[in-house]
């Protein structure tokens, strides 16, 4: 065998080695990159989709909540601590999983809570969230822990004028005036779907929506029965000028948003909701002491 042949053989072998090495590294990189989101979401068990085991391994359940209070559901106490039945429910789920609970309370809107869960920055989101078609494209939802009927608070005179002698329900059913809702809430979707002829006016928050009704910028505001009743309960004088209407065939299914891959966590949470069913009721929510912490 000539020196040239030998050196040629060595060169060929080296080329083969580097080619295989490159292939192996590429494959490893591909596998690593493909599992990157899972690694980011579940720090302890790279390679597994985010679900119950990864939460147990991480020893923490990250719960997204709104940064603003939702009276009777969750509020910040005088010491800044989160309180309320939703907070208690999250802590019960954490205890049942054997992990601590970390509340991620930066969400500026209801949709933002869902964003946190969809982006993997929280395992679950709990903030009086209604299930909607748009949200269901991005996250899972538990069974509802409370179901509230949709409701309107409306200016009696404006609606009666529009009704022209008909009962107010006839106008409200096909409402085509200005309808106030909270921006970034499920009620934006609901308003467009249920009142297609109305002009939907998105308010920064619920207080702004109420203010727009009081000032006559809108003739009705749209949310759930609990919120409508709470306004009238806290300010009874409003009953004279403003009427309440419940939409009997539209329910807000208040549920926990769960990460899209967390099928076992969903089953776990559904089991917990089933075991504690009845802890949320409209009557109890309305009489809750936490409901009084309303601006």
């Amino acid at each position, binding site marked *: 065998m000539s020196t040239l042949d030998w050196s040629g053989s060595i060169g060929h072998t080296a080329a083969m080695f580097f080619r295989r090495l490159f292939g192996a590294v590429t494959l490893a990189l591909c596998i690593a990159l493909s599992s990157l989101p899972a690694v980011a979401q579940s720090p302890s068990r790279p390679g597994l989709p985010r679900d119950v085991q990864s939460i147990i391994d991480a020893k923490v359940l990250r719960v997204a909540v709104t940064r603003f209070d939702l009276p009777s559901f969750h509020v910040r106490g005088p010491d800044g601590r989160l309180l309320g039945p939703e907070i208690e429910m999250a802590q019960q789920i954490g205890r049942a999983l054997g992990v601590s609970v970390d509340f991620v309370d930066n969400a500026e809107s209801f949709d933002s809570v869902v964003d946190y869960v969809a982006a993997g920055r929280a395992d679950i989101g709990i903030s009086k969230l209604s299930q909607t078609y748009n949200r269901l494209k991005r996250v899972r939802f538990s069974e509802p822990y409370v179901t509230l009927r949709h409701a309107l608070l409306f200016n*009696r005179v404006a609606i009666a004028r529009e*009704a022209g002698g008909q009962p107010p329900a006839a106008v409200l059913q096909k409402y085509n005036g200005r309808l106030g809702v909270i921006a970034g809430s499920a009620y934006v979707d609901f308003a467009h779907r249920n009142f297609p002829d109305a002009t939907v006016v998105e308010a920064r928050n619920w207080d702004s929506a109420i203010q727009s009704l009081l000032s006559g910028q809108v003739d009705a505001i749209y949310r759930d029965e609990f919120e409508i009743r709470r306004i009238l*309960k806290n300010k009874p004088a409003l009953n004279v000028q403003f009427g309440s209407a419940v*939409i009997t065939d539209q329910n807000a299914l208040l549920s926990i948003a769960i990460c899209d891959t967390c099928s076992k966590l969903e089953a776990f949470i559904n089991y917990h909701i089933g075991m504690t069913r009845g802890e949320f009721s409209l009557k109890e929510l309305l009489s809750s002491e936490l409901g009084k912490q309303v601006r």
Partner: protein
Amino acid sequence: MKVPQGRGVDNSLKALSRTINQPAITLAAIVLALVLGVMRLPFLQYLRPVGDFYIALLQICVLPFLLATIPLAVRSAMDGGSAPGVLRSLLFWVLITLVAVASVSAIIPSLFFDYSSPDQQMISHIGALLGRSADTIDVEFAVDPRHAAEIKGAADSGIVSLIPTNIFASLSSNDSVRVLVFAVIFGVGMVLTERESGKSIFDALRHIQSVCTLIFDWFSLLVPIGIVALVAPQVALLGPDAFTALTLFAYAFLATSAVLLLAAPMLCAFALRASPASVFGALLKPVMLGASTRNSLVCVPLALDTLKNDLKVKDEPCDLYLPIGIATIRFGTILYFVSATLFIGTLMGRHFSLIDLGLLAVFSVGASFATLGLSGLAALAPLAIVLRPFGLSYEVAVPLMIIIDPLADMVRTMLNVAINCMIPTLAGGRGTIPTLQLSL
């Protein structure tokens, strides 16, 4: 002359009834009932069954009495040849009275509300009442028409509700308006057939009428007890809310009612050339029976007896008008609807022009006819006909009106009886032949 034994018992019964039902005793019973009611003593609940028993007794003979009296009155008018004149006169006074009552009902409360508007504290009280009584939800509806509750058309509404398609069903269901319509039609038919064949059952009807009158005489011995047993628990139903949040409405409604209740006997006295005090004393019985029973129709026999025998009003207009008028023309309801609409309008900041007041009066008269066949809280439903054209909320009005209804129901019935007694008096004046038997 020897008086037959039965007639003697009858006369002594009437004498006893007159003694017991003297104006002074009736007034004393009213005052006692009001005092007991305002005190809201716990034992008043035990009076309620006594009152219900008394109303049941009074109702025993109402329909037979109407079925006998109306055909007899029709016959009397047709055979006497005076029917067209009496009817014209009655119609004239009915229209005048409707216009007058509707005008007074619009003017006095609107002046009242102009000078004393509700303050913020009262509005807060009313808001709290609304929130509590309506459980805070005013309207329920479905956005999907497939889920919307089917709006059942009223079985019978408007003029159809007056036609007695099945008189036996109307009798068994105590549907007095249809029974009255049947009695009028049947009375005309009986007179015409009597002229052809010479046969009739008018003597039998006259006997039935006498029997009913006798039975009413028995029960009228209990009027003072009935007033206390019925009025006191009813007044006690008025909660403190009626005296705080609804003071304004109560004052306006009661002040206007007082004007009308005083005007009716005064005009009767003028028409009869009698002393106002004696007319007032005579009318007190049927009017207070109305207040205590809250049932105008039950007062018909006593009202007829008072007009014809005590005040000596001509029989024909009384017999022809009173049963039908009391059953169909509800003057108290007209005032109530006008006052309620003006009050709700004041609460919601609506101003009523003179044209509005005129329309309000017309709508209220129309809505009062829509209450035919309805009683109690159900009779509030036609209030929507009056409120909604003015952009006012029926849903606000109903819970408020329910609070004041125990009192308002009594006053409405008093007005119905008093003003309906005034119409045949104005139409007929003093009769020359006072007794029913002779007129027939």
